[in-house]
């Protein structure tokens, strides 16, 4: 069972990154839940989602101790850092998040995901981040993630190739970083 | 011997509970006659209000739904979508029902242009509850909640509902009629016939406002009550056609 919290500004693709993970998990017949924050702010406000996938039945869809925290802005780091499980992982979008976690018992990765993605697709940062996550997860295949991307962009087939390119670049980047 | 006038079959055998001199009975009969003349009694569905006409479901010889206060146009909007489009649907409402508590339902059914007929009985007073001020009580007229007469500065102004609805795009036909003498009863019948014809032609919402008497709550004899409608109500609520898209089409 993996418990993931993704947080950032509305409009950064935070909620859809969570959906990509759930769609990838369901491709592998895993159980999954995606629970968004929701509120009056459509853009610019804060948004987060809790994603769980597991081969067992998922009881609570809420997460008090995430295994992995992905932050796209600094307020999100402030809000969720303390909750991360001992030995857990924090990934920050270092194009925006310059602060570092104070916790010493977690692994921290800084990924300039906006910069990295924009060379391929200016709106592809969250799919790039999905790619980054796959080597961290270790149990979601590239094939599943590709299917998830294809599914989410079903209505906009034109954007699929550049997003898949982002996904693959993200995987490669993270594999290299984790060596 | 030859029968030249009979009770319409569209009315049940149940005696009405209306007070002597009340206009409800006349309008019930006119609706029944018109539906019979148009051959549309079969499959007709009526929606009864809350108010003096609450028992209307006992008097019309067709499927009837008793509505919550003011909600008849909402109910009929849904019924319209379920039943055969050729079935006549009519809402029978008083002034409190149609113009006060149910104002939103009335206006929005009109805005949507629902293919239904609303019959609005305007007697300018709450009858069943005992003579309180209605949304159509005229300035100066006494009621149990404005015992010195309706002062618009204190109690607000009455509403001219037909004129107001005529500003909307949705309604197809709007007319105000009265029933205080035979010529006007005949005109009222013609208006109802027009309204149901508009519905049969699926042109949209038809709305007939009937200026009605309430001898009991105005403490008048039946004749005085009819005179009141003629001399007081009619000048304030002028009779006539306020909207007719069939005319515009010609």
């Amino acid at each position, binding site marked *: 069972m993996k418990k993931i919290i993704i947080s950032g500004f509305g409009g950064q693709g935070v909620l859809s990154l969570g959906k990509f993970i759930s769609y990838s998990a369901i491709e592998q017949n895993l159980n999954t*839940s995606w629970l968004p924050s929701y509120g009056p702010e459509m853009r610019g406000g804060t948004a987060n989602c809790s994603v769980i996938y597991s081969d067992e039945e998922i009881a*609570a*869809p809420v997460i008090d101790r995430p295994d992995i925290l992905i932050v796209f802005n600094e307020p999100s780091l402030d809000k969720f850092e303390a909750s991360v499980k001992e030995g857990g992982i924090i990934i920050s979008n270092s194009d925006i998040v310059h602060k570092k976690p104070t916790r010493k018992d977690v692994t921290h990765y800084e990924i300039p995901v906006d910069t990295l993605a924009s060379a391929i697709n200016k709106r592809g940062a969250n799919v790039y981040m999905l790619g980054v996550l796959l080597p961290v997860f270790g149990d979601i295949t590239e094939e599943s993630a590709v299917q998830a991307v294809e599914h989410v962009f079903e209505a906009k087939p034109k954007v699929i190739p550049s997003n898949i390119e982002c996904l693959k670049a993200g995987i490669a980047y993270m594999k290299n970083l984790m060596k | 011997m030859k029968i030249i006038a009979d009770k319409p079959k569209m009315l049940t055998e149940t005696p009405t509970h209306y007070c002597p001199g009340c206009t409800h009975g006349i309008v019930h009969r006119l609706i029944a006659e018109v539906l019979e003349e148009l051959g549309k009694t079969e499959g007709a569905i009526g929606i009864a209000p809350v108010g003096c006409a609450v028992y209307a479901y006992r008097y019309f*010889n067709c499927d*009837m739904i*008793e*509505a*919550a206060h003011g909600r008849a146009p*909402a109910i009929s*909007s849904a019924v319209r979508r379920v039943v055969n489009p050729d079935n006549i649907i009519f809402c029978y409402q008083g002034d409190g029902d149609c113009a006060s508590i149910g104002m939103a339902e009335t206006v929005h059914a009109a805005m949507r242009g629902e293919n239904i007929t609303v019959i609005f009985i305007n007697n300018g007073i709450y009858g069943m509850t005992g003579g309180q001020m209605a949304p159509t009580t005229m300035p100066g007229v006494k009621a149990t909640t404005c015992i010195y007469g309706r002062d618009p500065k204190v109690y607000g102004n009455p509403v001219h509902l037909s004129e107001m609805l005529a500003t909307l795009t949705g309604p197809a036909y709007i007319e105000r009629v009265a029933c205080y003498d035979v010529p006007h009863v005949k005109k009222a019948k013609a208006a109802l016939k027009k309204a149901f014809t508009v519905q049969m032609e699926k042109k949209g919402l038809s709305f007939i406002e009937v200026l009605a008497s309430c001898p009991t709550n105005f403490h008048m004899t039946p004749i005085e009550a009819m005179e009141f409608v003629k001399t007081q109500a009619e000048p304030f609520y002028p009779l006539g056609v306020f909207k007719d898209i069939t005319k515009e089409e010609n």
Partner: protein
Amino acid sequence: MKKLWKGNEAIAEAAVAAGCRYFFGYPITPQNEIPEYLSWRLFEVGGAFIQAESELSAINMVYGAASAGARAMTSSSSPGISLKQEGISYIAAAELPCVIVNMMRSGPGLGGIQASQGDYFQATKGGGHGDYHCIVYAPSTVQEFVDIIYNAFDVADEYRNPVMIIGDGMLGQMMEPAEIPPMKDTSKMFEKYHKDEWATCGHSDGKPRIINSLRIEPDENEEFTLRLYKKYEEIAKKETKVEEYRMDDAEIVFVAYGSVARICKAAIVELREQGIKAGLIRPITLYPYPTATIEKAAKSDKVKKFVTVEMSMGQMVEDVRLAVNGKKPVEFYGRCGGNVMMPADLVKYIKEGK
């Protein structure tokens, strides 16, 4: 096949599969995906949708469509459900079948838009005026919501009684894998349940049908109400639903419904890992209430105490206390205002009593 569904959209599609063809509603967070989905979907299957001018209108449109014999529903969230109460009382009194979904948010007043269970009293104890009850279901997963609404229209038709399904913002907004059952054959539904009996669909057989809730004579109204309560007795016998989770050897019994029951399950797993024998009684129907199941647990020598957990200041706990009837202690743990308790909060409460 299981697909990833957003709760609200799964509910909407499951209603269509169940034969619902008419929806009337008014926008309110967090249930908006239900009317949004049905606003196009119902026209595909020959039904209709109206975005009503208010919740009052919406529930009365349900009254109208149900009067004419159709499968109709509405959905809303707490403040909107308050507005619908007048209509729900009339629907119960006119014995009309329909389904009402409440995706609860926090109150009172305008309150907030986050998940809450503050409408338990309203849903189960009447809500509107007079002696009546809705049949109330409280699913805890998206799949269970789908399965319950799929069945709810049949239950409503069978008893000619409104069915209310209460979820919360969490269930409505979350995505989970769910399978929508096959489309029910609607061609005979109308005939089966209503046509020749009572529906005011425009009969021409000279026998007017009347839908009415006015019973002005006390004797008439009493006779009717007694009959209504006979019906509720039958419903209690046949329709009460409850899940018992790890109750075999449970010493501490959580009682919770809806999404809170899931949080309890996660807490139970943790507690058992730490050697504490906890279990859960999860009412699936809130009316009729599974009193007998709780009574049975209260009589068990193993059970030491009950802990009712709710996203409210304690509403269902009253029914738990009535069922336990003093045999064992009944404690309450609640969060309100739109805050959700975490499994760790419950573990801490059981271990430390706070």
